């Protein structure tokens, strides 16, 4: 796998992804033409299939209260779109609170995760370390043996974290998988660099900060982004451990409810019948479906903004890890 990645890196950008020699002019047979047409049709079909659900949700979020035609027509009649739903959401204190809570989980989570993952990965990458094997076993046992959610719930309950924001990110603050990816990167840094630093009188902690970290910006970004995605998208832990109580700083209510965005989104989406009016109509005069669709897009926006950066890294940084899926 590593060879494949190395080879892929060496290649310049050709017209297609095949090796360059393949792009010489050759006489195409009828079968080749049919093949190329099929490939292009498949690509365009894939494009349509992926695009339509996203577009229909996007169109729905701009539906106005006075639009009476079917949603299918609404996808095309762009001139009837109004941003009422977005105005309603942005003017709603509950929605802003959920955003703040989500960001607190995101920042707390990523900071904790990196503070724990970087030293762990570095420790595991020091091959001369006596007892390294035991540390490796220590992290691999929970990785392959997962006892499920109830014992973890009892632990969080036992520590007294229930109802507090750290309960959402602490149980998942190290992903062993990310740790292994980072360790493999550290192992790839030439040992000579560390040796020469040692000769110059650096201790191990100085080596980590002065040699390893400056050389591993790419992997730290990648792993950090993967953590960020998982904390931003996490609704299960928030549902399990939070109960919508206010977050207070020195007695001052910073936000009225600590429910993050995914929980609020889930409540909005799940609302139906009587509930629909209680939960959703608080958001003003936009249609209920438009509010639902708009809140979907609002929660996806940070992810969509971050996506180009993530894409830049995941294709090179973690290809070897994609096996795990």
């Amino acid at each position, binding site marked *: 796998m590593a060879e494949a990645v190395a080879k892929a890196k060496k290649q310049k950008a050709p017209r297609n992804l*095949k090796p360059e020699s393949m792009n010489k002019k050759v006489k195409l047979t009828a079968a080749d033409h049919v093949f190329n047409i099929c490939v292009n049709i*498949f690509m365009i079909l894939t494009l349509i299939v*992926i695009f339509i659900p996203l577009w229909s*949700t996007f169109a729905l979020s701009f539906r106005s209260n006075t639009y009476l035609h079917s949603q299918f027509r609404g996808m095309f009649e762009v001139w009837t779109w109004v941003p009422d739903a977005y105005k309603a959401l942005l003017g709603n204190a509950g929605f802003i609170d959920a955003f703040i809570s989500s960001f607190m989980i995101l920042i707390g989570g990523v900071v904790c995760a990196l503070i*724990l993952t970087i030293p762990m990965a570095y420790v595991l990458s020091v091959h001369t370390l*006596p007892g390294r094997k035991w540390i490796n076993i220590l992290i691999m046992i929970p990785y392959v043996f997962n006892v499920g*959610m109830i014992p973890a719930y009892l632990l969080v309950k036992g520590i007294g974290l229930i109802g507090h924001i750290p309960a959402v990110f602490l149980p998942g603050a190290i992903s062993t998988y990310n740790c292994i990816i980072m360790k493999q990167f550290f192992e790839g840094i030439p040992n000579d660099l560390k040796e020469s630093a040692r000769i110059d009188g650096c201790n191990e*902690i100085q080596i980590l900060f002065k040699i390893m970290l400056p050389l591993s910006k790419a992997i730290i970004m990648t792993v950090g982004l993967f953590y960020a995605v998982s904390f931003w998208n996490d609704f299960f832990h928030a549902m399990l451990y939070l109960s919508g109580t206010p977050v207070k700083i020195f007695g001052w209510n910073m936000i009225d409810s600590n429910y993050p965005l995914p929980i609020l989104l889930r409540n909005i989406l799940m609302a139906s019948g009587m509930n629909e009016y209680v939960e959703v109509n608080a958001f003003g005069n936009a249609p209920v479906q438009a509010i639902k669709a708009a809140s979907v897009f609002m929660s996806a926006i940070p992810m969509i903004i971050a996506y180009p950066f993530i894409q830049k890294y995941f294709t090179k940084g973690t290809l070897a890890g994609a096996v795990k*899926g």
Partner: protein
Amino acid sequence: MKKTSQPVVTTTKSGLAVSQEAAAVYKARNKAKLGAEIKRHAGVYLLAIIPVAYYIVFKYVPIWNAQIAFKDFMARQGVLGSAWVGLANFKEFFNSFYFWSLIRNTVMYSVGKLLLSLPLSIILAIAIYECTRPILRKIVQTLAYLPHFLSWVIMYGILLALLAPGDGVVNDVIKAIRGTNVGFDFLTSTKAFPWVVLFSDAWKEMGWSAIIFIAALMGIDGSLFEAAMVEGANSWQRVWYITLPAIRPVIVTVLILKLGTILDAGFNQIFMLYSAPVYSVADIIDTWVYRSGLLEFKFGLATAVGLFKGVFGMLLVFLSNFISKKVSETGIF
């Protein structure tokens, strides 16, 4: 260090006293060396303290807590105080009517997802690899990877916009074709629900799972294609006789490693999509553990089921890793 001490003992077999003495010397020297090594790495151990403590608290305490699978857990008495009941929780699970339906649903969903998305992602990877229009390729690649980064809550919102019986886009089309006014509720129909699960998963993860195959495709030696072209093979034949055999090891590895996670059928997805009318076809082990444990407070029973899944899953991971190492010389550890 062990390797250097061994030949000494064997070569001085003639004099036992000498060998023992030599061994003792080596042991002492090794000990001194080990001490020096530990001292030299003191900083590394210092770095390890916090993460190791984290692992012990957040990963090992839950394993310790899992003992309540063998207990009649009472919240007031705590994990240690509750009474042992042996295998009663496991027996209750194995003898219950939902046992087989949970196993069936779990395996059905994970195998179904594999059968649907593995061929799709291989075809997508080959199409991306063969596509001669760089702009089309770039757009497809960017769009196809995107859904992997959306959460299942967001996916549920998108599926609602698509499939809602009242005014979802799909139902608009169905109504127009059939000429009726009644929409079809995909998410509460026991017949349609499994397909919604399988296809929404394929939609979300197809591009992401194609990445590994694209990487493998880019490693194929170009001279193979040239030789085939000289021999007069057309594009279809090149795909069938060169491209597919070349990435076969990767396909096999992915397939086997997926086998190891067959009991993980996608908790987040099913939990978001399902509702009481479709529990019979939707419930997988994880969703059942959540409902019976945290909503009905049957902690012991739910932990027993989770533990059963954990042990079985671990065996599957070892098995798949073993097979994978045998077949394609790659494994996860």
